[in-house]
Every structure is written in C-alpha cells, then in structure tokens.
C-alpha cells in the first residue's frame, strides 16, 4: 500500500508528541481505542481558562502510520482553536487532508473520538473544579 506524502511526513516528523500533566485542571485527556484492535490514541489539550482557547496539544499513538498521522494532524489543528471550534473538527476533514484510503478511515474516526474525549474530560474537570469552589464557598461544617 502506498502512503500519501503527508502521512509519511507526519510519521517521520510527528508534531506535538508528548504528554501534559494529567492532573492540571486546565488539561483534558482523551484515551481511545484498544491494544487488541491495533490502535490506541492518547490526545491532550491544555485550555487557557480565561480565553477558552487551546494553548497546547500533545499526543501519543500506538497504531499504524495513518493513525499516527491522524493524531499528529489533530494536535496541529487544535492549537489556537476554542473548545467549541475543536469539537467541530470532523474525521472527514482528516481523511481529505491526509488522502487516507478507505481501509484507513477508522484512523481518522479514532482521532475525532480522541479530540471529543479530551475536551469532554476538560469540561468535566472544569465542572468539578467549579463545584469544588462552591464547596469551599459554603463550608458545611
């Protein structure tokens, strides 16, 4: 199977490989896929709490070249977007940008899932954080 030049470029020079501190309330982490399916993506976003803009994004992926390229591209696109703009990224955008063949579409679906999972984690943390603030404001004892 021939890979597109963009897939090869992301595979050879992956953008934003690494990890952000999971405990940071401004960091959302998404971990999707399963080892027995041959694809696992971890995608993290760090959101600026005042502007709601994604300042940083990192990924780590266990998967084929197309899975690595899809997650690498996703982190590139996430930076500078607001949380809502990030949720608008569709797997088909990734398919088009990387010229993925039909058998590799699941890689782009996984990347979209990873984005959604990371943002949902961030939102959950923010909700919890807000509640925590409430708790502190109204001590029960």
């Amino acid at each position, binding site marked *: 199977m021939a890979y597109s030049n963009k897939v090869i470029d992301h595979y050879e020079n992956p953008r934003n*490989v690494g990890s952000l501190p999971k405990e940071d309330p401004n960091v959302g982490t998404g*971990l999707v896929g399963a080892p027995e399916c041959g694809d696992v993506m971890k995608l993290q976003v760090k959101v600026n709490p005042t502007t709601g803009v994604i300042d940083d994004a990192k990924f780590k992926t266990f998967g084929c*070249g197309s899975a690595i390229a899809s997650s690498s591209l996703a982190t590139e696109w996430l930076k500078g977007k607001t949380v809502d703009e990030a949720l608008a990224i569709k797997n088909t955008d990734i398919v088009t940008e990387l010229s993925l063949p039909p058998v590799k579409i699941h890689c782009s679906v996984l990347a979209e899932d990873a984005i959604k999972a990371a943002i949902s984690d961030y939102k959950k943390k923010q909700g919890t954080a807000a509640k925590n603030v409430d708790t502190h404001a109204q001590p029960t004892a």
Partner: protein
Amino acid sequence: MAIKLPIYLDYHATTPVDPRVVDAMLPFFTEHFGNAASRNHPFGWAAEEAVDTARKQIADLIGANAKEIVFTSGATESDNLAIKGVAEMYREKGNHIITAVTEHKAVIDTCKRLEKDGYRVTYLPVQKDGLINLDELRNAITPKTILITIMAANNEIGVIQPLAAIGAIAKEKGVLFHTDGVQMVGKVPFNVNELKVDLVSMTAHKIYGPKGIGALYVRRRNPRVLLAPLIDGGGHERGMRSGTLNVPGIVGFGKAAELCRLEMASDTDRLLKLRDRLNDRLHKSLDEIYINGSMEHRLPHNLNISFAYVEGESLLMGINDVAVSSGSACTSASLEPSYVLKALGAGDDLAHSSIRFGLGRWTTEEEVDYVADKLAQVVTRLREMSPLYELAKEGVDLSTMQWQVN
C-alpha cells in the same frame, strides 16, 4: 562491502530462483519444447526424460519413489487435491477430517468448503508454543475419520509439528495423513517413510525454483492412496491431475530440489547462525520483545517476534528498506490480526506488534546486523510515542485496563 537496499528477509513468502535453476530450465523453453505426452517422436521423448529426471530429484529430496510424485500448479492446488481427493474417494469409509487452527488458508478454506458439502471437520487448537497436543489429536479420531491434515512447518512462526508422532497415530488408527510441507521440505531433513506421511504438498518457489509449479507426494504402498481428481482431461499424472505438463517449470523444480538436498546441511548451519545473530542482536538492544512459537521445534531460517507497545505496520513503515511481514491487522485487507498468532493465545495486542523474518540462501551477516540495528532504532522511537509504553512504565497493567472500544 556496501549493503544493497532494499534487503529481502521475506523468504517464507517466496524465494528468488537460483541462477543454476534458471540455467537448467532455459533449454526447455526453446530447444526441448516438446510435450511430455507425445510418445512417438524425439521432441516428446526429450521432454518426458527431463520430467522423469525431475521427478526423481524431487522424490530423492523426501525419500520417496519417483512414481509417487504428481505435478500440480503449486501447493494450493496440491492441498486441494489431497484433501478433496481423499474426501471424495473415501466418502463411503467416513466423512470426518482433522486439521489445526494454524494451517494455511489453502487447507482451512478447503476444509470449510467440504463442511458445506456435508463433511465434518475438527480444527485442533495449538498450545502456546504453536504445537498441537497429541492426546487431543488421538481423542479427536473417530471411526468416521478418513484424513488428518497437519502442516509440517508453519509459514508465520516456523514451528515444526511432531510429524513422526502424528504419522504413528494415523497409521495405528488406519487414517490417512496429509501434510502441507511447503515451508519445511528442502529446508530440513524430511523423509516420508520415517514420518509415515501419506500425502505431502510441495512447491518450487519456496525452494529457489520457479513459481507456478508444485507437486503432491501420493503414497503408493502401505497403504496405496487413491485420489479423486479435481481436473478431468487427458489422464496425465496417473489420472490424478490432467493437463499438459509444465516441462520447464518441472525441470526447474527438480534442479531446485537437488540443490536443496545437496546443500541442506551447509545452508541450515549458516542460516541458524544468522538467525541466532539477528535474535541476539535484537535482544541486546531492546527489552520486552517476545518470540512467537517454539524456538526448539522451529525452522532454522525463521524468527517471529512481537515488539511490545509498537504496532506492526508503523514498524514496517520505519524499516521501509527491509522486506519483512507483520501479523498486524493493518497490513491485511480484513483488518484482523494474524489468526496464527491469535491461536497461540498471546493476546491480540502482541499479534499486532509482530514481525516475521524469513532468512534465505543469499542473506548475509551485514544484512542481518543492518536490520537488527535499524529495527532497534525504530522501535525505540515508536515506543517514545506509544501511550501503551508510557502507561506500562507508570506501572499500569494494560491487561486489566478498561479500553474505550467503539
């Protein structure tokens, strides 16, 4: 000496034709082009004589009689002929066939076809080392069993089944024994009488001969095996396989078999050293790599390793100047990882992380060192970007994790 790239380490898939084989074949395209079935002129006689010589060369490789060799188009046809041929011929005796889950598709799919036609097939599991359990084989045999078909050496993990023991059980129970000998014949000693095997599938292109020519060994004595033909026609090959003989292919197959027989000892010795060198070098530079299948009962030129936390296709992408295969789903159209590795029970994740190395007649030490070093470098790089590696290093047990599967 500079290494010529790309490096070929996929000798289980196919092999280049030995130049000595090509030399032997060439006259049979032009000068001696006769039809081996032309009994009344010298063109036919020359072709027939060449076919007889090749038949003897192939028979000698497996300790058989030349009359027991039936030429086919390749091992897939040989497997089909053996299994379907026995099934039809011995239908009155029984309708039960025993095989194993790690067989080649040419055997598995042939058995599945027969199941649709009313036959019953037992697919024996394999143990962690890839070998079948002989007690399970014995217990699977019923009065209706007509055939045991168990491959000699596996095409992915190179594991050699206990053929002599299987042959003894088959003989004791009066059941015919077929083996797909494609990966083993010509590589390590193989004798049909010592192994008590009744039918053996072979092909030329795995032993440095041409593609498109194979053979089936069909035992003629103790017992005399009868087969219903798949192809009807002029009654060639004792009526078992009609069709004009592929004389140049047969000559090449014969020459290739002769070279394998004469050079087997030295080839095996050399390949074993190279294979162990590759294995040692990989183990020295990488942790958490796992060999799939028995190392003890294994072809000398095979190595199949899982590189934990790294997916096979991404590994192949990183070593794109080396030709090897992976059991990863991403390298197959079905998106299913290797059924052979899954059958070992090692877990699908390790199947996805596997690489099959097949060394051969022209593999050099320099090539092996290059491949080992390059792989170590790529595995290290990919582990650094693997979330599984990170989790494992944090002490998370990946097998107990809840994965979000969609």
